[in-house]
């Protein structure tokens, strides 16, 4: 396993020794992760490896049995829910929307951390909403009812919802799952751009090519433990893929970028 550059914890979202158990079954065992501002960190691993749990533990949505989370050097436990909301934006898996609201209204919900309970949306909030929707190319959908949008359109609207919070860290659980190839690339481009603009972005991913091409660093989880953590090149080795996913991958490159395709099951006899 490669050693990572040591980031300044005062300027990063950090998990140290995160351990979560459900009943007696361990879900996470002593996981470390560091998300500095300006980096896109991909969280990969097979189903049930604990990726979503790790994301929720970092967000404070799930209690941890051991370990600690710090944001810019402050302990997560000592921050109020509102302070956390100012620091971390969360895009949930499957982009749930329970009522038929317009896209603009959905995005506006991302401004709640900036509003007092009775406060109305201000013109500054409106400007932030427009800019976020522009960034995800969803401004033309603003008056559409979200429940009538296609999966790709909806993903862009909900991404704008997470962006408009204007938190320094953005955590997204499988933001490209169930999207067509165009929207997968679009969402990855937007997230890459967020990181380049200085936001710390942590995403759960299943697509190894997207992980290889877009992420600065990858954390490969397997059975609740970190199997590999480092640059995509160092993490996505044949050995690691065999161990974590029980697959063999084919790797190519184009325009100087590497990508890989799951090719055979590791136990395939052909």
């Amino acid at each position, binding site marked *: 396993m490669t050693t990572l550059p040591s980031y300044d914890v005062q300027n990063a979202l950090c998990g140290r020794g995160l351990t979560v158990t459900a009943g007696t079954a361990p879900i996470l065992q002593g996981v470390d992760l560091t998300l500095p501002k300006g980096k896109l960190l991909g969280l990969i691993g097979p189903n049930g490896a604990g990726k979503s749990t790790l994301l*929720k533990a970092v*967000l404070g*949505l799930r209690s941890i049995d051991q370990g600690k989370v710090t944001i810019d050097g402050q302990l997560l436990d000592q921050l*109020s*829910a*509102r*302070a*956390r*909301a*100012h620091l*971390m*934006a*969360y*895009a*949930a898996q499957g982009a*749930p*929307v*329970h*009522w*038929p*609201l*317009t896209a603009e*209204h*959905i995005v506006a*919900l*991302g401004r*709640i*951390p900036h*509003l007092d*309970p*009775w406060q109305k949306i201000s013109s500054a909030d409106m400007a932030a909403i427009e800019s976020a929707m522009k960034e995800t190319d969803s401004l033309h959908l603003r008056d559409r*009812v979200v429940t009538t949008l296609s999966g790709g359109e909806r993903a862009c609207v*909900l991404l704008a*919802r997470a962006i408009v*919070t204007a938190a320094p860290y953005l955590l997204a659980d499988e933001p490209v799952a169930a999207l067509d190839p165009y929207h997968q690339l679009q969402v990855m481009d937007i997230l890459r751009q967020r990181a380049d603009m200085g936001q710390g972005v942590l995403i759960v991913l299943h697509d190894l090519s997207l992980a290889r091409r877009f992420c600065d660093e990858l954390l490969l989880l397997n059975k609740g433990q970190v199997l590999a953590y480092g640059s995509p090149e160092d993490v996505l080795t044949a050995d690691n893929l065999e161990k974590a996913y029980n697959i063999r991958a084919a790797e190519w490159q184009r325009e100087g970028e590497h990508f890989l395709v799951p090719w055979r099951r590791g136990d395939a006899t052909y």
Partner: protein
Amino acid sequence: MSTVNRYIVLSAMAVIVLGLSLWSLMIGPAGLTATEVLAAALGMGDPAHVLIVQELRLPRVALGLFAGASLGLSGAALQGLLRNPLADPGVIGVSSSAGLGAVIAIYFGLAQVFPLSVQLMAMAGALVATLILFYLSLRDSSILTLILAGVGISALAGAALSLVMNFAPTPMNLQDMVMWMLGSLDNRTSADLAFSAPFMLLGALCLLGVGQGLNATTLGEETAQSLGINLRRLRLQVVIGSAFAVGATVAACGAIGFVGLVVPHVMRGLVGAAPGRLLWPSALGGAILLTVADLLTRIPVGQAQLRLGVVTAFIGAPLFLYIIYRTRETMR
């Protein structure tokens, strides 16, 4: 979906509430004109009219407004929290559990010893039912789980009710109790109003404060938490608030169903589906619906008088079935 400006809707509804209240005050064995009613309400004019309006008609009208607003508001808040358009205090068994509490207090003579016990027992019944319901159906916002839990709670409350009848020491009439459960605003006094209104107001105060939290839960509970919403407090506020509002309403006027289902549904078309923005309109809409229903009960139909809960059920139950028809594909 185009929606009308919310403040225009609210103002128009407030005017309708006032108009309907005045109309309702004018109706009765002693026919009074609008000016006579207004003068009497202010304590002027014929002393007989003052007595009729202030002691007989005002409590009825005010109780109807409060009860309707409580039911509409509770429906809107419960639907928001459960993310489910079929949540209504009547449908999900909260009203019948409140009714059970009230019946225990009435038929065991607690009410004679301590008049507030009817309200308190009804609120306790509503609270227990809401807690059971939340425990069962909060996790997945599934329509099916909610309705089945409601069926179970209603059946349990019904069974307990007939058990209570078996053991009640005072001689009683099953028909009286059934009629009481169907709801009415007949012969309500200012004492009934004074006992219930404070609890309804407390409940409303709890419920009107959850708008932002409910809006956030549109994105799911975890995302709402990530937006800084204190989920535990939000749930508690809705549970306690609706238990107060529904319990006090049932104690004063019986179990009137479907108001909390119909009103938010209609309001969604007017002011949009954001659950937090539905709270005030649903309160006013509930007041309107119950006042209209009370006006309808005063149309003579055959021998007996029409019951309030019967009128609201005839309006609400078909709509309930219609919503099921519309949402059955998404049911899980």
